[in-house]
């Protein structure tokens, strides 16, 4: 099919009549934003619709034309395409009438859709839906592409089958298949009938038939399981493919989460070590005694004074009492005893332990020191006895000073610890401050990790954290399952070979058992038909493989041309287990490239399309044009030049609407890059908005077209 001409009349911005005469090679329609590029593409799309939808949409009417109509005046919206197909000239035309009523409303009528065939001077008008015969709706997916995302046609569920059916002889095999199955049934029946008469081999035949049935049953089970496993493998591969993109993010996220957990634990640990319930320690650890040193001094002074005073007064009393013995004893005993020696009990303890509690020195029994203490104690006792014996009343009836004096001794011992309290507090505060600093540092690190996490999550195409983490876990799981399914398929296929051999052997044996009998001929016939059916089956597979490998080879040739000075990889085309096809890029180390950049993706998918087109033209039955709307938006200028260069050399009709070749001028106007356009080998149209126009009023917009080359 070669498109000769496209006519647009009152179709949106295409006011009144507009005609594009096209060549059978590259046709460029260049326009800036809003100039009518996509409208052109959509006009063809509208024309091609044969399903009867979207017939007379008022949105399709040129606003400018409808606004200028007088009441009761009419005009037509019309899109027509003249093309040559299999030697015939045809025109596909779709139109409807629009009329302005007296109240200014626009009404539509007179929808027509026709296919006009011109044969010399004869014109045959047919229903437009017959266009499907020249270009089936399925095939349109292979010729019209909007933007760069549309290009991945092979992902379409039935595209692969369509491709194989259209471009290989596979479809032709189906009729043979049916016939062979029919023939085989007949032949086997004839053989069975003949063998029934063969009484001699009845048992053997019976057993062989059982074997054949069994093997067939097994083979069908194996086939079913292979199919299941193949589906499983495809399924997991698809899942893995989707995940592949996020795998890196998943890994990063896990690492970040691990660090966050680590820091959080450290933080908790550091905080748990902070002990700063100081109010509690003031009481529980008696830190409140931090200033008790002065009080203790005061206490000691008071006690010292009291002890002296107490003895002094007692002595005086005894002297005053005039008891000689008592005086002597008092003079010897009391006055020479140190004021702070508490009394008889402690003296006795010191003698017993052979130690002076006050100077800390040993006083072994019998030593001068021990004897001194012993004598003193004896004198003291004697003096007391003397007092008692003399019948003098004791001066003191209570011994409270003794009680408070004992506290002084112990307090003295504890004083060292009390003065240490301040140091302990200081150390504790320093320690806690260090921990607070540590916590602050940890928190700063945590903040950094949280920021990282946010960044990762912000850049993962809307996947949530849970999904990313689940993906990571799933990868190994799915990989495992996919590998297991594939291993199982391998094993099943080996088993299948074995069972096929068994089956063939049994079938051969069955045919041989009849040798020399009347059934021999029938058996041989059945066997031969069986073998022919097998041969067809193999041929179909072979044919399919050849087609795919041919598309693959051609695609890589185009790829080579489209990416002369750039990385390109190798295109692989496979038929997936479920019958869908897939085209993808591979690195030289046979590793699949999952995320090629957009330009690379566009070129490899286009290469596939060109390859399909090339093969179809070689087969000389369905030469189809390719129509692209803005396919190169991701390309650099250099790449674009290469791209158009390659396309112009294709022996193929390509229609491209694009805003390439335009650049911004100094005053904001858009300028056509004539140098680049001149290098293009093909027909070039420029479309523009007619000036002046009101950018607020659609009714002032009109696309004007001019042929440049």
């Amino acid at each position: 099919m070669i498109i000769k001409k496209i006519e647009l009349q009152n179709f949106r911005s295409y006011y009144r009549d507009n005609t594009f005469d096209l060549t059978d090679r590259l046709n460029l329609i260049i326009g800036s934003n809003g100039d009518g590029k996509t409208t052109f593409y959509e006009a063809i799309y509208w024309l091609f619709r044969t399903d009867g939808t979207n017939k007379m949409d008022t949105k399709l009417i040129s606003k400018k034309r409808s606004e200028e109509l007088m009441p009761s005046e009419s005009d037509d919206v019309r899109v027509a395409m003249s093309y040559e197909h299999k030697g015939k000239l045809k025109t596909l035309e779709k139109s409807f009438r629009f009329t302005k009523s007296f109240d200014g409303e626009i009404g539509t009528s007179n929808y027509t859709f026709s296919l006009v065939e011109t044969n010399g001077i004869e014109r045959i008008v047919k229903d437009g839906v017959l266009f499907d015969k020249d270009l089936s709706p399925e095939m349109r997916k292979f010729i019209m592409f909007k933007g760069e995302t549309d290009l991945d046609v092979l992902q379409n569920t039935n595209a692969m089958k369509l491709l194989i059916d259209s471009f290989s002889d596979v479809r032709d095999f189906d009729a043979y298949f049916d016939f062979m199955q029919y023939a085989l049934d007949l032949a086997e029946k004839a053989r069975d009938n003949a063998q029934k008469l063969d009484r001699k081999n009845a048992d053997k035949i019976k057993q062989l038939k059982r074997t054949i049935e069994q093997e067939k049953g097994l083979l069908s089970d194996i086939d079913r399981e292979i199919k299941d496993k193949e589906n499983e493998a495809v399924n997991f591969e698809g899942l893995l493919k989707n995940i592949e993109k996020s795998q890196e993010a998943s890994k990063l996220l896990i690492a970040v989460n691990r660090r966050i957990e680590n820091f959080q634990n450290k933080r908790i640990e550091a905080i748990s070590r902070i002990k700063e319930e100081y109010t509690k320690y003031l009481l529980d650890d008696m830190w409140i005694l931090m200033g008790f040193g002065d009080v203790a001094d005061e206490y000691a002074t008071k006690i010292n004074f009291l002890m002296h005073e107490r003895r002094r007064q007692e002595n005086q009393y005894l002297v005053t009492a005039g008891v000689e013995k008592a005086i002597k004893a008092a003079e010897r005993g009391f006055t020479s005893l140190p004021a702070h020696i508490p009394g008889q009990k402690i003296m006795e303890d010191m003698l017993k332990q052979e130690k002076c509690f006050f100077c800390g020195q040993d006083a072994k029994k019998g030593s001068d020191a021990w004897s001194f203490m012993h004598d003193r104690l004896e004198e003291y006792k004697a003096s007391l006895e003397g007092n008692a014996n003399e019948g003098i009343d004791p001066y003191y009836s209570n011994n409270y000073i003794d009680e408070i004096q004992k506290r002084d001794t112990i307090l003295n011992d504890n004083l060292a610890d009390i003065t240490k309290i301040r140091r302990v507090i200081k150390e504790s505060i320093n320690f806690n401050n260090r921990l607070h600093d540590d916590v602050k540092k940890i928190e700063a690190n945590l903040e950094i990790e949280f920021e990282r996490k946010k960044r990762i999550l912000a850049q993962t195409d809307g996947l949530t954290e849970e999904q990313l983490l689940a993906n990571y876990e799933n990868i190994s799981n799915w990989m495992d399952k996919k590998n297991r399914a594939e291993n199982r398929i391998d094993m099943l296929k080996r088993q299948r070979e074995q069972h096929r051999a068994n089956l063939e052997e049994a079938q051969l044996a069955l045919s041989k058992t009849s040798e020399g009998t009347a059934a021999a001929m029938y058996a041989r016939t059945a066997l031969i038909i069986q073998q022919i059916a097998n041969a067809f089956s193999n041929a179909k597979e072979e044919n399919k493989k050849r087609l795919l490998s041919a598309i693959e080879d051609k695609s890589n040739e185009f790829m080579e041309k489209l990416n002369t000075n750039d990385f390109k990889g190798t295109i692989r085309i496979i038929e997936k287990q479920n019958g869908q096809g897939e085209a993808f890029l591979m690195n030289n180390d046979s590793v699949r490239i999952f995320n090629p950049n957009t330009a690379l993706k566009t070129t490899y998918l286009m290469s596939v399309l060109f390859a399909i087109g090339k093969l179809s033209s070689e087969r000389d039955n369905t030469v189809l044009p390719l129509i692209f709307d803005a396919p190169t938006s991701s390309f650099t200028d250099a790449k674009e030049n290469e791209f158009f260069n390659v396309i112009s050399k294709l022996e193929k009709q390509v229609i491209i609407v694009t805003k390439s070749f335009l650049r911004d001028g100094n005053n904001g106007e858009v300028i056509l890059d004539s140098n680049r356009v001149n290098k293009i080998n093909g027909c070039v149209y420029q479309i523009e908005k007619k000036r002046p126009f009101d950018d607020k009023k659609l009714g002032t917009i009109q696309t004007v077209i001019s042929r440049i080359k």
Partner: protein
Amino acid sequence: MCIMAENTFNDIEDLVKKDEKLIDIWGRRNPRFEKHYEQSVLRVISDYGVGASGNMGAKGKILGAGYEPYIMAFFIGLYSDKKIPLSEESDEVKGLGQPLQYWGNLDSKKNRKAYPNLRSYIFIALVAKTEIDWIALDKGDIEPATVVTALVKTMEEYANYGFSVMEEKLKEDKGYFFSNRAFLDMFLQLTDKTAKDIEQEDSPESID
């Protein structure tokens, strides 16, 4: 039965034993404070008045039993060496309700330690700071109870000053004592002289 169980009475003979320590007599006393501090201080920072429930944490109180703020108040007065006599109006003062001999015993609060030894130090401080004719006491010229009353009075007056300081702080900032450092810093400041001593100790000795 309307006969009271025998052991609900104190053993009088035991209490008046001749060799009873002065601190034991002191220990049975219930120091008093000015009633208005109950609302403005005690209930704000301790469980005073909420009964024997052990949920200081749940109420966010810093201190447990009512004697704890009392101890704080006392030491504030002691270290400041400032006393304020209690109001002479008997209906303006009240006893704390827990005799001194129980102060600092292990209480039911979580994460707390007992500190019964602190009582001895309070007693020592009172002896140091109270003018008492100890000779007369030993001679039997004055009663131990009189001496103990004087000691308790000193304690009450120190605490009374302490409470006034605490009340002042709380007036400025209701949450003042919720800071871990509030009491600690207050005591560090009051006993600053010692702090300077420590710093001097810490500094290296002069070579000269």
